[in-house]
């Protein structure tokens, strides 16, 4: 029981990270109908920017503890957003109106470019950091097994919830969010209503990248090691989360992220750590075969 509870805590905090990245996949798919395969690498860039920011801030002795984290998060979000914007501008916008596979191929190319760029500029070795946030609570004791809820996990869950609340408000309640949904439902009509659709698409990439930066920062702080290749595996899992939740659906992305985090954690805890990725990707295949629209996705058929 205590063991399961511990896995639940671990799974939720991991799932939150997947969910944040999955939103970026699902938003971009919703608005331009492509899978942005470079999005996992945007997450990796976010983690590296946080690492650099953290080292600069803490070694400069400017700040430490929560203040440093907030500052690092803000910096990483801003710079990663810039990367997201640039990627769209360079690799996807020129291909708009081209055949459907073109931006997909371009995305794979962009993913390779970003990985190699970081590998060359930052080195290929893994980058460890000292734990920034330590401590936690023992919330339950069962025999010798203590259920731990670390301060870092609380931080991940709270930050994610706050970011998600702001994001939900943005999409459902603001003019910008309405323009984004309009572009998603009928881009041509949105432009006939005077919406600058290119700009709206850019903003979508910026928001997706900023959320990936949050995930990257959390990943760095929680696991303490990153390298240029983390974007691939985490990215594919977040993509799986987006598909499981129903690609195009924002609540679905969060739900899918949580489920993938939980499945992976429980699988590692009860079956085999070595095969945890297999578990996650089996879900991808099962979803695609038996439930292609995902849990909260909608069927393509619509009343005309």
């Amino acid at each position, binding site marked *: 029981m205590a063991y399961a509870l511990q896995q639940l805590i671990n799974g939720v905090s991991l799932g939150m990270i997947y969910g944040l990245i999955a939103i970026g996949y699902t938003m971009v798919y919703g608005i331009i109908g492509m899978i942005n395969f470079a999005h996992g690498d945007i997450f990796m860039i976010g983690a590296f920017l946080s690492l650099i920011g953290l080292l600069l801030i803490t070694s400069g002795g400017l700040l430490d503890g929560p203040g440093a984290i907030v500052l690092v998060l803000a910096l990483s979000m801003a710079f990663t957003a810039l990367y997201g914007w640039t990627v769209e501008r360079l690799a996807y916008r020129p291909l708009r109106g081209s055949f459907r596979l073109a931006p997909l191929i371009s995305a794979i190319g962009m993913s390779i470019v970003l990985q190699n760029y970081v590998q060359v500029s930052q080195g290929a070795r893994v980058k460890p950091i000292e734990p920034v946030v330590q401590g936690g609570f023992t919330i339950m004791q069962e025999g010798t097994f203590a259920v731990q809820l670390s301060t870092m996990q609380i931080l991940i869950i709270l930050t994610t919830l706050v970011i998600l609340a702001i994001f939900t408000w943005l999409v459902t309640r603001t*003019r910008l969010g*309405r*323009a984004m*949904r*309009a572009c998603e*439902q*009928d881009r*041509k*009509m*949105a*432009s*006939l*209503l*005077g*919406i*600058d*659709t290119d700009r709206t698409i850019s903003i979508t990439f910026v928001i997706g990248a900023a959320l990936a930066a949050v995930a990257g920062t959390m990943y760095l702080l929680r696991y303490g090691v990153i390298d240029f290749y983390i974007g691939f595996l985490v990215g594919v899992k977040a993509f799986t989360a987006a598909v499981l939740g129903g690609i195009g659906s924002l609540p679905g992305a969060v739900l899918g992220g949580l489920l993938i985090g939980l499945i992976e954690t429980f699988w590692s805890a009860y079956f085999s750590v070595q095969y945890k990725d297999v578990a996650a990707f089996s879900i991808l295949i099962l979803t695609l075969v038996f439930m292609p629209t995902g849990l909260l996705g909608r069927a393509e058929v*619509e*009343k*005309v």
Partner: protein
Amino acid sequence: MSTPLLEIRDVSTFYGAVEALKGVSVTVAPGEIVTLIGANGAGKSTLLMTICGDPRARSGRICFDGQDITERPTHHIMRSGIAQSPEGRRIFPRMSVHENLLMGAQSSGIDPCPGLDQAFTLFPRLKEREAQRAGTLSGGEQQMLAIARALMSRPRLLLLDEPSLGLAPLVSRQIFQAIRKLNMETGLTVLLVEQNANQALRLAHRGYVLVTGRITMSGTGRELLARPDVRDAYLGGH
């Protein structure tokens, strides 16, 4: 005639290698209702879309209110006082009726409240359905929504594409009445594309006949209605 609000001069539009419009010239004066009639595939909708810059005219000039808008991006054109209720209605199916209407006023930055009031006065049905998802409306209601949404930006020129398509005669009559009312009360200028030539020519001040991308005839609504060749081709021969 006063200076035209919309002047289309010798416009050609292509879809790939296919020339959909072949040197079309149309003018619309302020306060006029002008209709464009023609068979399926004649290029009527293409002309309305070309005015909006999507697809762009390959040659010729389009001027709105004295300004050359031929090369402007679509969203600029649509912010300059033109609105379109397009072919197929294209309402946002997963937004509420209310949100669809707000979208109409969004980019012009004007207060949506008077527009909403006007929309609900014109089409009381939309008021009843305000919170409903637009995709669940009936065809007639969707058409009303598409027109009301186009009016939200307070346009000077309304481009209307087949407002009667697929509607019961009673509903289509309601919609035509609404257009006439708007034109008389607010001086709204309308360029109307219709297959239902009879109704359209009765409503319009002037009309153009479009045949495979070329204007073949023009005149007042009455004149065109009286022409035997128009009657044969577009009014079912009686």
